[in-house]
């Protein structure tokens, strides 16, 4: 009890001198960004661009040298000569807003107890006031998938925009997918590994159990006597067949939810594809280190992949030393929709550099950018409104002094979410200022 109080007090004292920036109000002014190099996120580049937006939507994405521009239509014109405009970056598979400090249990809300929790929803725990989020945002990440973890089925993820007063405000697409940690399918030898035969038996049993679980969930979804989630709550029609877990999986069978399977090893990927194929699920592989071994399968079944960090080590001693660096390019060349991700929360601020590395290993810069913009939007099913700079889509974009993929030159100076100009300040910038002032080194 004393401990808890102590932590709460500490948290309070921090918040007193380092507030997260206030969320921005809705776009009221019509804005035009002129002369920047626009990287549209769909692979196209406009050297001297004119980007106009009002009421949160892009109204103009064009080449300033080719179109006739009526600047009087805009309340505010930003001259971004020499700068670069990008769609807001999209971070998949994060715990943003769910974990504040990894090792402080009271600040960790991403991992529920139990093995099958399809009904738990990440959006409920999303902390829109996290001190972490603004540090990620100031590097250009404006949308994120917030993902639960733990157990076999961890729960449901949602997509949020990273500037809001509360989770309802932040929600961009709620409960869009269910996350399944595929049981390990290789025999492993390490510190506390079980005997080989025990492991081999478990592999088969786990698969059978998982299969049965989905069979039962399907039977439930087909049972007319159950009440669909829209009508849950105080409802006189509720019967003893009602099952919140299976109910939450209904969307997988009618195609409104995506099944995200977290796995790395090739056999797990193949098995996940087979399961999704059997039930007709929309499948996304998360992690997918071995995806390069089964590109044909993934392509033919239209399975997308959320790769882990490009900045990681090859899993096997003999692997090509640059394997993680070139995985994006291998998947891109095979025609697979993929994105890269960074795992965790604060690490998301390095998302664009993880993409940048793929541009050094086989991709063009625009392809690398596409992976964390339009591709990510497609995977999350939000590409109708986000992911690229196209007229009619949300005005969710950033302006950088340099190349957003390269830490050598990147410096994000403006960011807009649905036309709202975001305050790019964060606790770290505030502390920097404080101490630069203290030492007189500004």
């Amino acid at each position, binding site marked *: 009890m004393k401990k808890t109080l102590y932590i709460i007090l500490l948290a309070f004292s*921090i918040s007193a001198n380092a507030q997260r920036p206030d969320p921005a109000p809705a776009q009221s002014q019509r804005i035009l960004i002129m002369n920047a190099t626009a990287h549209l996120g769909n692979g196209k580049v406009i050297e001297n661009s004119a980007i106009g937006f009002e009421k949160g939507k892009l109204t103009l994405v064009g080449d300033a040298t080719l179109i006739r521009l009526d600047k009087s239509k805009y309340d505010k014109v930003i001259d971004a000569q020499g700068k670069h405009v990008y769609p807001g970056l999209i971070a998949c598979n994060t715990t943003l807003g769910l974990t504040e400090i990894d090792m402080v249990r009271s600040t960790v809300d991403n991992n529920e107890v139990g093995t099958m929790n399809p009904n738990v929803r990440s959006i409920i725990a999303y902390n829109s006031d996290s001190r972490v989020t603004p540090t990620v945002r100031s590097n250009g990440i404006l949308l994120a998938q917030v993902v639960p973890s733990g157990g076999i089925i961890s729960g449901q993820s949602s997509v949020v925009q990273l500037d809001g007063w509360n989770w309802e405000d932040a929600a961009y697409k709620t409960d869009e997918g269910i996350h399944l940690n595929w049981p390990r399918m*290789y025999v492993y030898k390490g510190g506390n590994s079980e005997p080989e035969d025990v492991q081999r038996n478990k592999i088969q049993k786990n698969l059978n159990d998982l299969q049965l679980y989905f069979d039962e969930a399907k039977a439930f979804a087909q049972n007319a006597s159950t009440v669909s989630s829209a009508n849950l709550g105080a409802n006189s029609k509720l019967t003893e067949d009602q099952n919140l877990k299976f109910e939450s999986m209904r969307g997988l069978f009618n195609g409104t939810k995506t099944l995200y399977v977290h796995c790395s090893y090739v056999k797990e990927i193949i098995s996940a594809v087979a399961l999704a194929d059997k039930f007709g699920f929309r499948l996304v592989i998360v992690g997918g280190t071995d995806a390069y071994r089964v590109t044909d399968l993934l392509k033919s079944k239209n399975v997308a992949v959320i790769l882990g960090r490009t900045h990681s*080590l090859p899993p096997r001693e003999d692997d090509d030393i640059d394997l993680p660096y070139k995985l994006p390019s291998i998947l891109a060349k095979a025609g697979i929709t993929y994105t890269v991700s960074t795992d965790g929360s604060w690490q998301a601020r390095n998302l664009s550099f993880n993409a940048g590395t793929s541009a050094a290993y086989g991709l063009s810069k625009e392809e690398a950018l596409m992976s964390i913009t339009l591709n990510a939007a497609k995977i999350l099913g939000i590409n109708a409104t986000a992911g690229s700079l196209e007229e009619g889509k949300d005005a969710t974009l950033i302006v950088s002094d340099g190349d957003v993929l390269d*830490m050598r030159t990147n410096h994000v100076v403006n960011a807009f979410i649905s036309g709202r100009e975001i305050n790019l300040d964060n606790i770290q910038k505030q502390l920097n200022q404080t101490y630069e002032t203290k030492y007189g080194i500004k």
Partner: protein
Amino acid sequence: MKRIFTLTLFVMFALQNFAQETFPVNGTADPRHTIYAFKNAVIHTDYKTSVQSATLLIQDGKILSSGAGITIPANAVVFDLKGKHIYPSLIDIFSDYGMADVKKPENDPNPQFISKTKGAYNWNQAVKAEYDAYRNFTADGKKAEELRKMGFGTVMSLSRDGIVRGSSTVVMLGDERENEMIIRDRAASNFSFNKGSSSQDYPSSLMGSIALLRQTYYDADWYTKGGYKEEYNISLDAFNKNKNLPQIFEAGDKQNVLRAVKIGSEFGVNYIIKSDGDEFERIEEIKNAGAALIVPLTFPDGYDFSDPYEAVNVSLHQMKYWELAPTNPGVLASKNISFALTAADLKNKTDFWKNLRKAIENGLTEEDALKALTFTPAALLKLDDKIGALKNNMLANFIITSTNISNKDNQIFENWVNGKRYQIADPILGDVRGNYSLTIDNLKPMRIKIGGEINSPEAFLFEDTTGAKISFLRQGSILTFQMELKKSEPKGNYRLTGDASTQNWNGNVLLPTAEWGKWSMKLDSAFIPPVPKADSIKKESPKGVVYFPNMAYGWKELPKAKTYLITNATVWTNEKDGILKNTDVLIENGKIKQIGKNLVAPAGCEVTDGTNLHVTPGIIDEHSHIAVSHSVNEGTQSSSAEVRIGDVVDADDVQIYRQLAGGVTTSHLLHGSANAIGGQTQLIKLRWGQPAEKLKFEGAPGFIKFALGENVKQSNWGDNQVTRFPQTRMGVEQVYWDYFTRASIYNAKRSLVTVSADQQSIPVRRDLDLDALVEIMKGKRFITCHSYVQSEINMLMHVADSFGFKVNTFTHILEGYKVADKMKAHGVSGASTFSDWWAYKFEVYEAIPYNGPIMHKVGLNVSYNSDDAEMARRLNQEAAKAVMYGGVSEEEAFKFVTLNPAKMLHVDDRTGSLKVGKDGDVVVWNDNPLSIYAKPLQTYVDGIKYFDIKQDEILRKEITAEKARLMQKMADAKNKGESTQKPVFKALELKHCNDSELFMPH
């Protein structure tokens, strides 16, 4: 008179020879002093001598004589061994025969700081010098029989438990009383790196085991020189008493063998070292180490690659090891390394002969094999006057075999132990394989074929052309067959039994009708081993060569220094010249020879056109945990200053190569952060392929790791770890005060005794832990301290000021920006931090990516480190974050990962910048090294090109080809019936400073 004297002498001699017993006789005494004579045998009197048609005479368990032309006394029992061989029986000096099983330590989640052994024993439960195997030896009939069947007559039994294991004993493998079987009570003193059944926390790491052993040597020395007056210590007393015995060290793999040798050289001990059998992978170093070895015959099974997706989990190292492990004994012999072979570690003891013959097929001569199983083990224990050969007065321990022991078909018929016969196979039957015709009563003769292995023959019945396996047993000369006849009447089961002692076998048969009949069997043709068709004999394909290290990306031949010229490049000097355009760099004899424009390429120089390329000094990682064997933490006590990462450098870590490919040339390998005073660190250069000792940065000053904050106070170690002092930052300060106070007193006492040593005084015990602290206070050892929050940073500087030394480096130091001015005032040599890590635990909640830039602007020497094998591959990009967040100039930012760490490590006279005369630690990049798009094309260490991106492409193809070759070879071996194992994924061990048995973050 003379006669009386002779007679007396004779009687005395005879009496001496006769065994005497202390045990009472129940019944009538039955003394046996029979002389046994074995004649007409090929007698191998020792490993290199064999005598044809020789005779062996034994009596009372001893050899009377052996050789040719020996007269057999009339009163001898004579065995005619025509055509058979007699060998000295085999000796295994690394056996657990007759020893109790080693218990697994109880799994107690609570910490245990001192030994649970009750009594006046050592503080550490793994030091059991007082253990004597002979006091605990109990003969084990079943195991003795198993060993005798393999041909062994004598073993050295030891308790494989603990780091100091006490004495072992040499026993014979007969079934007589223990009193008769022990031939050397205290045969050797035994050691290992493994604490075995000890439940005590310390040591938890390999380097901890090494430190404990070294400390025990010093303690024992102190004890004998007067320490015994201060305390009684059974373990140390026994340790000293065991000192004049042969010293045997169970080390393990090749690197551990070298580690054991190093310990031995510190204390003037030549260990006999039990290895794992992988010495061939570093044979030159093993040879130079000069130790005699005890080598197991454990050869791994090939992998079953029928599932290709499991196959991908088998590494090239595992495959190459499979191919080359059987060459190990032969390689050792060819290098004239003295070694004994042991059956220890064989999962299946019956593999002993199979594997010995495999070793012989792979280059071990029969003579060397025999030597390693007779003479050498006997000589190593100074028992070669008793066992290991068949010479007068030696023990009558020998085996009788059908032919040469290296012959695949050799059978051991008898094993004589202490002059007592143990029959193993029936020599009357010998090889029964062949084609026979069988007649039962009046039935038409049928053909029987006996084939299979000589020691496990199988019988087949041919009623027509197809054969059916039938049951076939023999007991002595009694034979039984059981067969079902389908073609002859009456049909049904026939049960034959008969006598095999005559040329033609015959006997009675129980017919299907339950009546009895007669049968006989005649040998038509003897067994002829099947000769494979000429085209089907695949000569074993040539073996692959050993790589350095013997794994993917290893070298076939280690690279050497050449002269290199890189022309017309952008050169980042890190010197006052700054960044030079269109400049050439010449590297010669391992050093930077010249930097300038239009340099002339010396003859034989390798030239790289550096147009559009960047040349920089090699990257230096101030905080790394790669290339360390086993744990990086000895975190069981608040100080582990006595442990040394330098003892456990792992030259076979693929991360060395991967980091070279990221432009790293120097890494500072740190102890973890589990305790306030961690272990001594090791600076290495990434000389990929070289053995551990040659990776070490020569002449670099010593460092020690300190740590503060959450890890040290065990904040995130779970609910069981709440009793080790300290649990708060207040306690951490007192740990330092306590240790440095004690170290000061210790230092004063030691200096005093050195000056005025008199016979009466008790010497001050050398304490390796305090030694390291004294070095710190004397400025001979520098600190790099894991630190996060401002309060603790401040604290350590105060402690240092109080004891008159400087904190050299603060590592991690994520709140350094809050006390940068104080650090500058204290005079720290460096602040080594992360670029942008935070929020992973509470103490880094105010970590900011502006930390490095602020400290830099305040005037501190700042570096960025990795603490992570992955990040180390792109430290250049981390440096770029100082540009992005803090507006540091590119030139200064790049120094964060090159010159600045060199300065804080005090090796900037050698590396860290491109300056004529400095080491050739150079990287060639395709782009500005701060860019995400930059890749190292070449990395030089000491002017040797250890990484080349073009060579890497070739290596990848070679790895694939070598794996393909070995997969085919394994498939062939599997088809030939060799046993296989299924692939298992062995995850690469990645270490962080948090790694220990308990989870803990950075």
